[in-house]
């Protein structure tokens, strides 16, 4: 029942929820959280590409025995590798974001972006 299209639709919905959160939230931390939601949505999409119906994980271990060219019944390993990197990138950006939030809070005494002096001196 679960095939690529359903996964694709699921990840787009998650993506849009993340963006909706990023747009409508007032608090900066909540925005950063919703952005990490967006990151995870893209990661999920990336993993869902490699999904093959009732296939085994791409790790050669005892009970799988051998990998033969003819019946290669494992899911695509490449997206897994890509996701590994994408997660860390998500972490990186959120880390820097949090640092900036701390500094902004220390400056403006509030995290509500509307009151962060939008009419500054130009």
């Amino acid at each position, binding site marked *: 029942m679960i095939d690529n299209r359903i996964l694709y639709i699921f990840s787009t919905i998650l993506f849009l929820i993340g963006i909706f959160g990023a747009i409508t939230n007032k608090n900066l931390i909540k925005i950063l959280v919703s952005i990490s939601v967006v990151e995870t949505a893209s990661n999920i999409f990336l993993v869902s590409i490699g999904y093959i119906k009732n296939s085994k994980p791409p790790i050669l271990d005892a009970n799988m025995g051998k990998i033969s*060219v003819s019946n290669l019944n494992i899911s695509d390993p*490449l997206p897994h590798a890509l996701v590994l990197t994408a997660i860390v990138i998500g972490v990186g950006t959120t880390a820097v974001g949090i640092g900036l939030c701390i500094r902004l809070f220390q400056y403006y005494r509030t995290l509500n972006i*509307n009151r962060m002096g939008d009419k500054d001196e130009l």
Partner: protein
Amino acid sequence: MKETDFNVGKFFAFLFLFIIFIFMLFPLFEQGNGLKIEKEIKDLRNRVSFAYSTKSVTDITKTLKESGDYSKYREIYNQERNDIRFKESANLENGSANIVTSIVLDYRGFDTLGELIVLFISIIGLTIILSNLNFVPFNPPTFLQKTGVLFLTPFIMLTSIYISLHGHLTPGGGFPAGSIIATLSLFLMIGYKFSYKLKFLNFIESTSGFLVFFLALLGLFITGSFLGNYLPTGIVGKLFSSYLILILYSLVSIKVGAELSVAIKTLYDGENNDR
């Protein structure tokens, strides 16, 4: 946006996102010719990762070299090849049982090194941004925290070492192991307010990073291309099988552990009160 028309903003946001949602759905329900996302994919035949999982990249490239056209690798996929048996086949291309780790460190190793730098630069960024910021110190550790930390630390240490060493056999590898080490240092901070000096952590971090890249650079001088595998690959499935991946992944775990603990330390009690 003023406070009042906030929910109007919400409505509009919803409208925009609905339009984008429709746009994103078009590719699925499109009749026109040309490739598109199918319902489900049968096998890895038309993908590059078929060669990765059958560890047959070098001899595919050898056959392609004669024909001179590298773009026609899909036809050569169904050539007969001896299959890889767990704990028997030896001296393969990279000898790691976990194919994902083989891609992560061997076939597309450069991405992981890039990822390493991402983490490195974001932590430096964090320290630069939060430089000389004084934090409100946490209240002293309660009894519960002390005993809990005391009880948990050995087990955490054990799992992180296990994960980092078995990177090429079981899922997980350098990055999860590093994050576990970081949690360890967090517990120590919470429990005993003890943390290594920042200078020491930075030193470990930069040396391990330097070593990772240096070893990779050795590949260039020995095997003629950067990140080339100059160590023997051993028997698939054994603990000591693909030596280069083993070394690299352990260094990565040390580096990530040191880095994340630096990050946690700066977030925890600021940079300057370096006890």
